[in-house]
């Protein structure tokens, strides 16, 4: 794009043609204040805060609606401009309640900041303020009308960004008010975007309002633990009786793949962490009852029993189930523990997508997996199956906004009229279960088209769609778990014929992809290497059992038959999630690590209280393969990380921990004491070592030690440690993976979560439950009304 030269405050500024003056100024480090302007939303020109002087123009101009033109000469810092802005603030304050001392936004309020900068604290107005009580619009959204400065950001983000259109403006001029779609309440997706985008404290959240002040919290940037999209979220934590309580979630700094987006789960559903049913003591079954015990007692018992079973019956008598919400380090360690310490390949997890088939289809191909960022920038997208609005809110946001802001073409094929069809250039409704046939048809099997036809979809429209797609370049093909096994091969085959095309396979949980990549499979090692072809893992670990292990359903059968004598479940609740006979494991010695007494935990012999992903460090891999850092934010006394517990159990079994976790190798470093780093000063040497992945891992409980090993041994994970630590996502590729292996498609059980549910976690989130209740109440009411 052509460059345009302008002068701002005597400074030469160059920006691409079409740039808004306010952005050009920002780019040059000159701040122009604004309330109504918000990047990527339609222009409003409502607040007049951004007034600047442009030479040859008679009056002051709004920088947020002015497009730069060659030779434009702008001044942003004259007395006139200053005065104009000051009077804008003064007018806004005319009816503003000035309850800053109790307002949630206090300390982070743009109106406060402006008043501070322009000093319009004195008012010429003496009229009484127009008061209105605070209103609750939903379990999540509260509105304090007098605080509203009518910038309309909330209205635009809800409509344009979320495609929900739940907020509107009623009346006009000074009597304008923001109104919810249902008269006195909201019926919406409860994302909280409107709340976080509000420059003042007019919209506040049920989760955070009147709880604390921004400066009383510590802010930790980590990754959301709910769906598989991997939003970055900044958690505000505060010390409390039981450790560190998470009081807020947002991503206002717009870092990460999600910018300022978060759905209700990432923004508010952290409250499961402080649910009163949280386990904080190990429990051991004594005389038939789970009884509180000490950690030492618990580890000793587990160590003894696991060693016994392994000694007497061999590794095949032990089963291990991992989690899709524990970190990569936890998962890697768990499967290594199973294979090396327990001597078994009996390891599995709740599978929600067929990654082994994807790895197999991509093996030997150049890099062609799409990242979450690609979805925002691709010129064209094809979505097969799934309903991202409900199951992948960030992905849906990326797709929607790619269409809106970049005019990308979206092709949707689904058995339901899903909401994203509203952004679609073409929407094809096919019979339920036809997704696999579509993949085959795309890959060239014309006979598959018969399974796609119904009154809405014809043979010709299918052919036309395929032709259109073939004509696209850099197409991103996104598919849900409806596409498995050979159908994935078909999709990849189709994609390979399109220049620059990429694929994206959708799984359901925060670290579903990580669990798969880290080898929580009975037949696959980390990086989709077959157990029969263990290669470097053999060397590194000193032997890997070669026989393929049992899948989870096979473990259940084996337990029922009395052959599976011990079972170790880490963060998994298969009895609750799959509806398995709870007595299936009654003859086995069962150890469960979890946050709550789940349906699975109640039948265990030992239950260990686990920390969740907001309470530990490590990494997550989202469904696209974007690797991100997980940082410890909250803390609940009496829990331990899964990582530490696995290590402790290995220790209790008498295993040499150095063979499990590569820590303390050659640890003769100068730890910084003599390098003159003063308190509060960054130890640059340590920072450098850390960034290079060279810092000494001093303890067997340090997940970073396992990350070292993952980066060394798992193909695709050798990404920049420095970028990772800086909080940036790093796309891992499947290109160099092992060969994968065909899995039984029935082993994939979709989570069936929607916008307001989140598996076992969701059941312990008060926010999610109150929203679900509220929505039920509403639909019950409308049902009655409809009768």
């Amino acid at each position, binding site marked *: 794009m052509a460059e345009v030269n302008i002068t701002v405050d005597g400074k030469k500024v160059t920006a691409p043609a079409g740039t808004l003056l306010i952005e050009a100024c920002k780019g040059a480090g000159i701040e122009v204040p604004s309330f109504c302007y918000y990047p990527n939303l339609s222009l409003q020109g409502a607040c007049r805060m951004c007034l600047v002087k442009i030479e040859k123009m008679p009056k002051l101009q709004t920088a947020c609606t002015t497009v730069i033109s060659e030779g434009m000469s702008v001044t942003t810092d004259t007395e006139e401009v200053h005065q104009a802005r000051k009077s804008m603030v003064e007018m806004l304050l005319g009816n503003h309640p000035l309850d800053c001392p109790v307002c949630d936004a206090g300390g982070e309020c743009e109106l406060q900041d402006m008043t501070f900068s322009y000093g319009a604290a004195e008012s010429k107005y003496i009229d009484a303020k127009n008061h209105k009580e605070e209103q609750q619009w939903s379990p999540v959204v509260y509105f304090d009308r007098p605080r509203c400065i009518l910038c309309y950001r909330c209205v635009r983000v809800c409509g344009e960004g979320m495609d929900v*259109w*739940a907020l*509107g*403006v*009623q*009346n*006009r001029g000074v009597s304008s008010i923001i*109104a919810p*779609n249902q008269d006195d309440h909201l019926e919406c997706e409860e994302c909280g975007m409107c709340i976080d985008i509000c420059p003042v404290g007019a919209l506040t959240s049920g989760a955070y309002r009147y709880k604390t002040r921004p400066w009383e919290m510590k802010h930790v940037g980590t990754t959301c633990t709910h769906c598989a999209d991997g939003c970055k979220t900044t958690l505000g934590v505060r010390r409390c009786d039981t450790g560190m309580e998470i009081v807020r979630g947002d991503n206002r700094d717009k870092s990460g793949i999600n910018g300022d987006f978060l759905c209700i789960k990432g923004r508010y559903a952290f409250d499961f962490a402080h649910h009163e049913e949280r386990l904080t003591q190990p429990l051991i079954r004594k005389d038939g009852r789970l009884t509180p015990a000490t950690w030492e007692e618990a580890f000793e018992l587990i160590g003894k029993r696991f060693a016994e079973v392994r000694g007497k019956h061999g590794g095949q008598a032990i089963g291990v189930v991992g989690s899709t919400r524990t970190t990569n380090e936890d998962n890697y360690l768990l499967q290594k523990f199973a294979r090396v310490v327990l001597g078994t390949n009996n390891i599995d997890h709740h599978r929600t997508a067929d990654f082994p088939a994807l790895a197999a289809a991509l093996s030997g191909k150049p890099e062609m997996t799409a990242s979450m960022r690609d979805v925002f920038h691709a010129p064209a997208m094809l979505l097969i199956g799934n309903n991202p609005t409900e199951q992948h809110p960030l992905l849906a946001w990326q797709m929607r906004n790619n269409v809106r802001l970049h005019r990308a073409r979206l092709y949707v094929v689904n058995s339901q009229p899903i909401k994203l069809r509203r952004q679609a250039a073409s929407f094809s409704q096919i019979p339920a279960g036809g997704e696999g046939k579509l993949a085959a048809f795309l890959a060239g099997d014309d006979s598959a088209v018969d399974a796609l036809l119904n009154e809405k979809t014809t043979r010709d429209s299918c052919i036309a769609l395929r032709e259109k797609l073939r004509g696209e370049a850099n197409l991103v093909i996104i598919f849900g778990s409806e596409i498995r096994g050979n159908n994935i091969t078909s999709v990849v085959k189709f994609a390979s014929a399109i220049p620059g095309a990429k694929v994206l396979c959708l799984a359901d949980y925060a670290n579903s992809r990580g669990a798969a990549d880290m080898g929580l499979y009975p037949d696959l090692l980390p990086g989709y290497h077959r157990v029969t072809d263990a290669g470097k893992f053999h060397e590194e670990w000193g032997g890997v059992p070669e026989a393929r292990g049992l899948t989870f359903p096979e473990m259940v059968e084996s337990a029922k038959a009395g052959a599976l004598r011990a079972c170790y479940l880490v963060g998994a609740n298969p009895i609750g999630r799959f509806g398995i006979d709870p007595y299936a494991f009654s003859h086995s010695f069962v150890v469960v690590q979890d946050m709550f007494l789940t349906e699975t935990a109640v039948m265990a012999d030992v239950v260990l209280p686990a920390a969740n992903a907001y309470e530990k460090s490590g990494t997550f891999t989202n469904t696209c393969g974007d690797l991100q850092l997980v940082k410890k934010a909250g803390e609940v006394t009496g829990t331990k990380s899964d990582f530490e517990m696995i290590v402790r159990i290995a220790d209790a079994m008498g295993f040499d921990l150095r063979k499990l976790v590569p820590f303390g190798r050659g640890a003769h470093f100068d730890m910084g004491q003599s390098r003159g780093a003063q308190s509060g000063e960054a130890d640059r040497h340590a920072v450098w070592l850390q960034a290079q992945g060279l810092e000494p891992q001093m303890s067997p409980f340090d997940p970073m030690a396992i990350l070292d090993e993952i980066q060394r041994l798992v193909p695709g994970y050798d990404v920049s440690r420095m970028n990772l630590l800086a909080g940036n996502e790093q796309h891992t590729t499947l290109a160099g993976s092992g060969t994968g292996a065909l899995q039984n498609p029935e082993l994939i059980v979709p989570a069936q979560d929607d916008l307001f549910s989140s598996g076992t976690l969701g059941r312990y989130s008060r926010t999610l439950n109150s929203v679900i209740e509220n929505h039920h109440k509403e639909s019950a009411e409308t049902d009655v009304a409809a009768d």
Partner: protein
Amino acid sequence: MKFSDQFEQRFTEMLTHYPTKRSVLVPTLLFAQDEIGFLSDEVIHELAGRLDLTDLEVRNVISYYSMLTTKPRGKFNVQVCTNIACMLRGADELFEHCEKKLGIGHKGTTPDGLFSLEEVECIGACSWAPAAQVNYDFHENLTPDKMDRVLDEYKKKGTQ
């Protein structure tokens, strides 16, 4: 929801006048209001559906225009201008007179449903101030006496 054939005809015709569907909203609202008397929830829902808008968006537009109303009004809507030219020539007295005569205040409706009263901004008849508008008809150079005659006339029309 059923509108008259004339409404439907106008609506269909109007759709061809604008590049986007939603643009016909304002005139359509006026037609609907003329026909039904006010913009009921049912009307709002129907029009929103036809124009691919949410009910809320339709309400936003209605609330912006003071000529549009979501509440039933009298058969004759008496709008007395009290803006500057009319004010200088006695509009306030005129308005008060109407209030007394009809026994209702600003935005009120008589119990028989015949009259509503409203104080409005300039209706563009300043040269003949003070002026009032009853539905779509203008009455100019008004005095309380003249206003009485005007109102009586309507009353007669309405009770015939």
